[in-house]
């Protein structure tokens, strides 16, 4: 692929951006006095800031690149990740779960599990989460550095080291506050950097109607109905009628209910932003405020991919063709940047890409250093030390987290299979989690043994299901079928993943209930006050103006999401 040449103005924009993120860390350094300041921003963040950080931390480079790639590959059905997946889950966590996360004064998600269940459940969650965050930050670092190498000709080492050092410095200086403030800055940068790309692209293809026309041959060439790339629901009756190869039930249950709720409601990376809010009301509003811009994000991250494939289909060969003969979808965003952006705004677009990457990495690192320090180090390694000691450990954990991410990025260049395998294992561990939290928060009878064995059995169910099923056309191995027999063939990898999640969740849900009923309660009603729905006084937010009431906001958000689903039906 031809490298894009950057002008002095493009580098100038990138350098100004670096100066600002470091400057924010520098100014904030004097506000970090205790471990609470470093790991939780002293619980002082206003709702709107926490809300924007909530989306931004999740909006890593992999999301920007990956969503555009899916937009090119599957069309507007990709927006189900938002309109069926993320948004309902964000409303749920804000209205129903935040009262227990924030109200329990737990400092992390694993710590909530300890308060609610027991030590082993916390330990399992803390350790898997810590390993997972470090690896996902490393894998996304690898993806970005590879991309910059391919598109700009930058050396892999320079990209990795430069981005790691900048993120390290600003987190060390200002802790979570610095990460959150920079996430807000990065949020605006991502929006304002990609918006002109979408506007130019849409103008080029003749607006939405022009895009619909241009995507018809793409759909019919692939053997689907002409609207398959631009209707989000119409072709979901059967898995063979749409490019994702998923039917509506697997999508709504697997992606919507299990995977999205599992991620948005239990992943400390995002929940940490809400825990840092300055009041219970602000913490509950955090995911709801985040949901408002989030529901419009498909226009920003999926549309560029759809436009790229439309131009690829009609203009011929916009996307480079990979070794397997299909277009390299992952290059949709950089190719679009190079296609429409002249020097100047090109610097802004690339800076936005860097910003998305850094926000994702900082999110991972701040979540990692907290879980490591509070849930692993303070709990199992050196309990009962002074706050100063744990603050220093937080600094060390930040350095260690970033070094480990860099190591993971380099490992990914050599052992691609190991990385894929790790991601698979993480998927197994994550799938059942939401069942544990749901039962923990809404059923006081759930016991520690029940939760722990439910999690283990759910993870095992995921592995077994994956091992016995295979997506169409794949060979047994990492893609599934590794247990020898292939009992079921799914039309696509995505369908297989959704169903793996459904099996894992159901197993965990049932196993937790059964084993809880067979074991004695390890927490009395008194212990569970503030941790379980039935034992927590209802929050009254009648005195707040309507737009600050979580329930009202939630209804507004869900209503708007339904409207979007109907418009793009």
């Amino acid at each position, binding site marked *: 692929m031809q490298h894009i040449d950057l002008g002095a103005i493009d580098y100038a924009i990138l350098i100004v951006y670096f100066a600002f993120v470091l400057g924010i860390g520098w100014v904030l350094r004097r506000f970090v006095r205790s471990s609470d300041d470093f790991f939780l921003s002293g619980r002082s963040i206003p709702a709107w800031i926490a809300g924007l950080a909530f989306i931004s931390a999740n909006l890593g480079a992999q999301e920007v690149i990956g969503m555009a790639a899916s937009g090119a590959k599957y069309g507007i059905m990709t927006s189900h990740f938002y309109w069926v997946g993320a948004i309902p889950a964000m409303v749920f966590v804000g209205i129903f779960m935040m009262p227990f996360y924030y109200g329990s004064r737990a400092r992390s998600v694993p710590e909530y599990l300890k308060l609610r269940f027991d030590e082993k459940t916390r330990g399992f969650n803390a350790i898997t989460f810590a390993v997972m965050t470090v690896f996902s930050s490393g894998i996304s670092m690898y993806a970005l550095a590879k991309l910059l190498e391919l598109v700009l000709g930058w050396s892999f080492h320079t990209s990795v080291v430069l981005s790691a050092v900048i993120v390290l410095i600003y987190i060390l200086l200002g802790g979570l*506050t610095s990460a959150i403030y920079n996430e807000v800055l990065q949020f605006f940068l991502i929006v304002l950097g990609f918006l002109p790309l979408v506007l130019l692209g849409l103008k080029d293809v003749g607006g939405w109607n022009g895009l619909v026309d241009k995507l018809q041959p793409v759909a019919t060439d692939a053997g689907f109905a002409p609207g398959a790339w631009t209707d989000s629901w119409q072709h979901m009756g059967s898995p063979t009628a749409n490019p994702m190869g998923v039917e509506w039930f697997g999508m709504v249950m697997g992606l919507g209910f299990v995977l999205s709720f599992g991620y948005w409601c239990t992943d400390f990376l995002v929940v940490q932003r809400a825990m840092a809010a300055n009041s219970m009301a602000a913490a509950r509003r955090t995911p709801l405020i985040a949901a408002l811009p989030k529901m419009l994000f498909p226009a920003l991250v999926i549309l560029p991919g759809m436009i790229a494939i439309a131009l690829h289909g009609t203009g011929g060969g916009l996307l480079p063709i990979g070794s397997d003969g299909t277009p390299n979808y992952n290059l949709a965003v950089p190719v679009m940047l190079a296609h429409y952006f002249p020097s*100047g705004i090109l610097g802004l677009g690339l800076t936005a890409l860097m910003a998305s990457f850094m926000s994702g990495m900082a999110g991972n690192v701040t979540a990692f250093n907290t879980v490591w320090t509070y849930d692993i180090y303070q709990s199992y390694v050196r309990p009962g030390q002074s706050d100063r000691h744990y603050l220093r450990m937080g600094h060390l954990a930040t350095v260690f987290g970033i070094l480990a991410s860099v190591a993971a990025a380099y490992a990914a260049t050599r052992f691609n299979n190991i990385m894929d395998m790790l991601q698979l294992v993480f998927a197994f561990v994550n799938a059942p989690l939401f069942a544990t939290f749901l039962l923990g928060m809404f059923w006081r009878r759930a016991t520690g043994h029940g939760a722990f064995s439910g999690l283990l059995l759910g993870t095992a169910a995921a592995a077994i299901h994956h091992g016995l099923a295979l997506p169409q056309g794949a060979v047994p191995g990492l893609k599934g079928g590794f247990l020898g027999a292939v009992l079921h063939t799914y039309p696509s990898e995505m369908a297989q993943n959704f169903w793996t999640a459904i099996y894992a969740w159901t197993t965990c849900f049932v196993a937790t209930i059964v084993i809880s009923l067979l074991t004695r309660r390890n927490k009395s009603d008194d212990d569970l006050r503030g941790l379980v729905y039935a034992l927590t006084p209802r929050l009254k937010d009648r005195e707040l103006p309507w737009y600050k009431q979580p329930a009202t906001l939630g209804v507004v958000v869900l209503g708007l999401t339904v409207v979007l689903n109907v418009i793009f039906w």
Partner: protein
Amino acid sequence: MKLDVRLPIGMMFALFGVMLVLYGLATRDAGYQRSLGINVNLWWGLVLLAFGLVMLAFAIRARRAGGGATGSE
């Protein structure tokens, strides 16, 4: 109180805006074929500048009002 996050955001985008507007003016004869004949640097620079100034205005107003230095509450 802590830093008002709107201050650095406003400053950065206003600066980006000025940079792009100046660059757009300097290159206004360049044709801009890539961006469909639109001088996207000039126009988007103006958008960024406007956004930056609005953020700065909010931050300055909050500072004058005292108290709410970190935002709306």
